[in-house]
């Protein structure tokens, strides 16, 4: 039991992070905290992806100082990097929008920034 838990610890961590992120996104009304929630969600997905890429006994695909042996195809690492780049763009955009909303409404509460409803 403990061994499987330790072996699967990164997956557990990813799920816990996702839970935290969804908790924030549901219950926190502060717009900045929503941005944090999205960033944490993104990190949890990144952690999940990187964990998938672990191959026991594989060698990192870097030719410099590489020992002999089978190299790992770095697909998930590429996916993770792409997702990090996208997450940076997303959070920069959301932050600028939050600042503009703050300028217009003078509040960071998502309950207050609902001109449109119904």
């Amino acid at each position: 039991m403990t061994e499987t838990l330790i072996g699967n610890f990164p997956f557990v961590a990813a799920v816990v992070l996702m839970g935290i992120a969804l908790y924030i996104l549901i219950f926190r009304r502060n717009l900045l905290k929503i941005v944090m929630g999205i960033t944490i969600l993104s990190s949890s997905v990144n952690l999940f992806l990187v964990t998938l890429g672990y191959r026991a006994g594989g060698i990192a695909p870097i030719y410099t100082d590489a020992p002999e042996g089978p190299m790992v195809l770095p697909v998930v690492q590429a996916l993770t990097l792409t997702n990090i780049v996208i997450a940076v763009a997303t959070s920069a955009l959301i932050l600028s929008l939050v600042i503009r909303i703050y300028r217009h409404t003078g509040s960071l509460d998502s309950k207050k920034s609902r001109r449109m409803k119904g």
Partner: protein
Amino acid sequence: MSKIVRTVANQLMAFVLVFGLYVIMHGHVTPGGGFQGGAIIASGVVMLIVAFGSGQIKKFLRERRLSLVESSGALLFILVAFAGIGTVFFYNFLVGSRIFGGIPPTGSNPGDVWTGGVIPLMNLAVGLKVTAGLSAAVLALALFSSGEEMEE
């Protein structure tokens, strides 16, 4: 910030730039690449903003220049991709040629930069774009929070 901080930030910026460029140009042989190197340089810009204040930095990091660099980085990337269209889009046409055309050696070696074909060029393009883009974003956010606007 105090004079000490400003002086140190000034001196450190040179090292940040060198390290960022190193990460960009060695992206195909060591961990790193265009985005990572660009982010390092942009973090140097953040350091300058913290030390000198966004109003001071705005004077020499003009938005027009930044967007010019950003566009040309993206343009370089996509043009390199287009250059392979004689065979297939994104085709690595530089492999085996004089420029970046070496075959990477296996085994224990210090790393050969002169390999990778178009990948170093693309790293350079991405590095330019990310440097300019992230600096502009950070600068815009800093200006926003101090109540100024970036000029259009």
